């Protein structure tokens, strides 16, 4: 597993008696585009929360580039290179599109905390260029002066991805990036994710099976908090246990 950028061993999260995640041995290679799928309630979001540091696991360990990060707090993981885009776009609604990315770029350049009480960040050109690059990547540069809260649903979600990108991540976690998007927006985001996967490792939770089967290098299926199967899209498509889990539970698209 030496080429794994992100790895978990025996990872678990219990809420009282309810195990949202258990015994998850998971590993992603550098540069891979990996999808995590599963019926509703399978524990996907919990798994992402554990990876991003949003929640603390009750069992197991997490390693990033060989280093244990199980108990490293969320912001510190971002500094190390793990960024996340949220299920519902999580942006600064009152700031401009550009300022949204600038803030993320500022976090990248200054770190967790800086007592810079007397100097404005306006002259930090590296922050501007980092923010500009992120907007170019998601094709929002034309809207950079728009108030973020006024964007369309799809643009907000892409901005959320741009904010994550402006932190210069090595691994990007995308939580349902096309949820609620129109067909055209889904196609646009599909191209975006393929482009991103050439630059970094991408982990994606998604219910849109057409998208997942089209773009993923490999797929991990969660079911009732555990890994049910892992493999290429073709293998997953042909896996009878996966079909059973989906059909037996709640159907979410077709496998």
């Amino acid at each position, binding site marked *: 597993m030496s080429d794994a950028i992100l790895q978990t061993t025996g990872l678990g999260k219990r809420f009282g008696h309810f195990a949202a995640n258990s015994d998850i041995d998971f590993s992603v290679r550098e540069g891979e585009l990996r999808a995590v799928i599963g019926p509703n309630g399978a524990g996907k979001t919990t798994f992402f929360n554990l990876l991003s540091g*949003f929640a603390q696991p009750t069992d197991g360990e997490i390693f990033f580039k060989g280093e244990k990060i199980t108990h490293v707090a969320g912001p510190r993981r971002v500094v190390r290179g793990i960024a*996340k885009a949220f299920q519902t776009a999580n942006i600064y609604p009152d700031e401009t599109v550009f300022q949204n990315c600038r803030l993320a770029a*500022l976090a990248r350049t200054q*770190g967790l905390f800086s007592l810079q009480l007397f100097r404005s960040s306006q002259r930090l050109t590296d922050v501007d260029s980092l923010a500009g690059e992120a907007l170019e990547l998601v094709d929002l540069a034309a809207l950079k002066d728009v108030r973020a809260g006024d964007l369309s649903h799809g643009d907000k979600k892409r901005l959320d991805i741009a*904010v994550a990108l402006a932190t210069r991540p090595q691994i990007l976690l995308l939580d349902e990036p096309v949820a609620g998007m129109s067909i055209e927006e889904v196609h646009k985001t599909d191209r975006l994710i393929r482009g991103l996967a050439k630059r970094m490792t991408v982990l994606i939770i998604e219910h849109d099976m057409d998208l997942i089967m089209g773009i993923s290098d490999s797929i991990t299926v969660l079911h009732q908090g555990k890994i049910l199967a892992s493999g290429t899209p073709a293998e997953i498509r042909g896996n009878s246990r996966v079909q059973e889990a989906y059909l037996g539970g709640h159907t979410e698209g077709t496998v």
Partner: protein
Amino acid sequence: MKDARFYGLTALGLVLFPFLIHPIGGYPGLATQILIVAIGSIGFNLLLGYAGLLSYGQSMFYGVGGYMALLTISKFFPDHPNFWLAILLGVGFVTLMAVAIGALVVRLYGIYFALLTLAFAQMFFFVVFKWRDLTQGDDGLQGISAPPLSLGFTSIDLTGTFPSLDLGPFGNLSDVHYWYAFVALIMLLVLAFTRTLIRSQFGEVLGAIRENEERSTFVGFDPRRYKLAAFTIAGALTGLSGALRGLYETSIAPDALTVGTSGDFVIYTVIGGVKTLFGPLVGTGLIMYMQNVISAKTDAWRLIEGLLFVAVIVFLPGGILGSFKRKRARTILAAAVAAGPPDAPSRAAAREAAP
């Protein structure tokens, strides 16, 4: 250029203030009191307006700052009373207090944050009230004259006045004590500091955290450290306000640490304009002036103040200055009270687990 205009106009306003207040029933001493208290309001606004934290315990910093400054003169160094040392120990002690208390309270949000700051303030009130040996209990510290202000080459007795010069309806120049000039200079520095801070990188990130703490965490900022820094700076400013007040009044009593004092900072700031540079100064000035004029005529001052507060919240949610800027000020207030923690993982899990 904008800097020059800011400093010029602010300095001009501060020079004219004690005279302009004269024909409308005020007096220069009131102008001094207003500026002193307004330093605390400006500190409070850093919390409420810029960090989104509604502290209901600013009285502890204000009161303890005043007690420490006066005790420095009367108890700690009675043989060598020094004005600067009194300020230094007052502000220094309060700053340490703010760091220690802040480290605990910045973990909480909204109403819980407000209640915990209130609880801390009540504890300090109790200590000051009961520690008679040091604080003289409810009698307070009385008649402790501030030593002259030493400037190295000379020293100034701040209770001295300017030379006599008749200014017609604006009174006489000799009505103004050196205290006013000193406090006005400090106010200018405080305003300059605050203005720089809110435009600084620190202010920018603080605002981002106020607007969306969860996103700020997940771009790699550490919200607690930012809030702690803001809490500490606000505490230090409020401590400075209290220390100056103690030295100016030559006395302080436990009422400086009551909930009412904390509430005053809230009222002054909200009425003047939350998240505006001059709002806390304007609000403090307006309310203290009205209190002075109206309470001379009727006992119902608090009632009138309350009605004014309600009217501002309802009709001018941005406060007097904020209403000019058409900022979303009511959302600032609502967010400070209602702000929850970043979506709790358990809730996220519950959502995920839901069929």
